[in-house]
């Protein structure tokens, strides 16, 4: 199944809409976190640590044939579940797609404001970092073209 960046967001929102209470939604996030492969140990370094998260989060980007692939993981399972959702939307996309897609779907999942504002779990910092890499790859792509 290959979803577009738009479909990925819509599908995630639809999947979460089936849950009637918060415990089911969080159980789903935890399950996603457990299933998520995390990030290779070689990238669990200070260079790839996302600052501003209370739990430890690492994010590594790879740029291949005009597409950005992210690997990311956390030691906290709820955060790792959120990472799984973010990567489903943002990984395997072009820099342009990543740059122009705000993480609006997060707010439509029925999680608490506390969780979705992302100050505690670093959600905001992660999205920022994902976008920063995309901006850098976008600039690289353009300079390659002009060369």
């Amino acid at each position, binding site marked *: 199944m290959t979803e577009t960046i738009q479909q990925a967001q819509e599908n995630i929102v639809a999947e979460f809409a089936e849950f009637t209470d*918060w*415990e089911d939604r*969080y*159980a789903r996030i*935890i399950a996603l976190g457990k299933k998520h492969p995390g990030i290779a140990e070689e990238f669990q370094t200070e260079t790839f640590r996302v600052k501003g998260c*209370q*739990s*430890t989060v690492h994010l590594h980007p790879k740029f291949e044939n005009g597409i950005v692939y992210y690997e990311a993981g956390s*030691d*906290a*399972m*709820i*955060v790792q579940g959120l990472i799984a959702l973010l990567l489903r939307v943002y990984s395997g996309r072009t820099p342009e797609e990543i740059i122009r897609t705000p993480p609006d779907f997060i707010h439509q999942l029925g999680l*608490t404001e*506390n*969780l979705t504002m992302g100050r*505690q*779990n670093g959600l905001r910092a992660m999205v920022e970092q994902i976008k920063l890499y995309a901006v850098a790859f976008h600039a690289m792509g353009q300079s390659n073209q002009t060369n």
Partner: protein
Amino acid sequence: MTSTEPHHATILEPLDVQRVREDFPALHQQVNGHPLVYLDNAATAQKPRAVLDALQHYYENDNANVHRGVHMLSQRATDAYEAAREAVRAFLNVESEKEIVFVRGATEGINLVAQSFGRAFLRAGDEIVISHMEHHSNIVPWQLLCEAIGAKLRVIPINDRGELVLDDFDALLNERTRFVSILHTSNALGTVNPVEDIVRRVRAHNPEIRVLIDGCQAVQHTSVDVRALDCDFFVFSGHKLFGPTGIGVLYGRRELLEAMPPYQGGGDMIDRVSFDGSTWADLPNKFEAGTPHIAGAIGLGAAIDYVRALGIERIEARERELLAHGTAALESIPGLRLIGTAAHKTGVLSFIVDGIHPHDIGTLLDMRGIAVRVGHHCAQPVMQHFGVPATVRASLAFTNTSEELDRLAEGIRKAISMFQ
């Protein structure tokens, strides 16, 4: 002050918690659809109405700058500000209000001593002793000083219950030891250190060694008599004692404060200023440059009056019961490990749960309206000692109830079940 002296007869009566809780407006709210259970008191305490009223009253009636006005409002503001200093003096039982310096908090108090006393009286090769359980605010200021002057930091180890190893402390004291800075009660573990004994050991070794006690987690839980304690410096933060944020206290022995150079320059701390040089105001103004946090000090005075009226002994008795109840409730949860099991503890329940990150526990507890702290609690060396990156910490105040601790235990059990 006499009206707020706790009456002896009332000390023996237990605290009427339901009535006392009515004094704290912030406790009566819903969080995520549940009544708030506030268990983050070691980070900051909620404020009683008496403190909020004092702040409001000051700004509505007496607001003016202190110490240099001839007009009525300035005199009233000065009187209220200095009455708060007197309340602190009596609370700590120190000799003179000149020994009470208002600072932003314990952190600023320690930095003031490290920078002013440390730079003036410590030399390269001198040794400063702290402990493995210190808050970062009692580590980093000394590291900065050591870097600047070439002094050396020595650390008292802790055991696996989270208690100081006092035999090792004796061994650390030597002819180069000049300063000892120790917390009274650990924010991360709840350990209450035998501070009187520590001061005695230092004095026996060499009466010239100066001792600072960080009372941040002590003054809201137990009575502290600084004169009996016989330390040279004592700090605490107002906001953990039910007062406003941004106000704290540094007590310093008068002859030491007299000998120390100013920490910051500015208004209010001078005697005379000219371009040839300036002379300093008397204590404590020498260390209070600029317009102080007048409202904060007045609020802190109100908080002290409130606590003394309730009776710190009654508070202590109440919290002892709560801690016992909470400890038993948490110990009954399979897979939960308490971090910090000292024989002498105050109301801190720091713990980890097998296979579940503290951050996840904290997030799921918040969904049930239960506010705890998750993280290293500004005490990373403590976390390193116990081999954990973080803990969940529930920290108590006398306003908590056993039912709230049962809700905490129930919340933890439910969080664990979500991971199975």
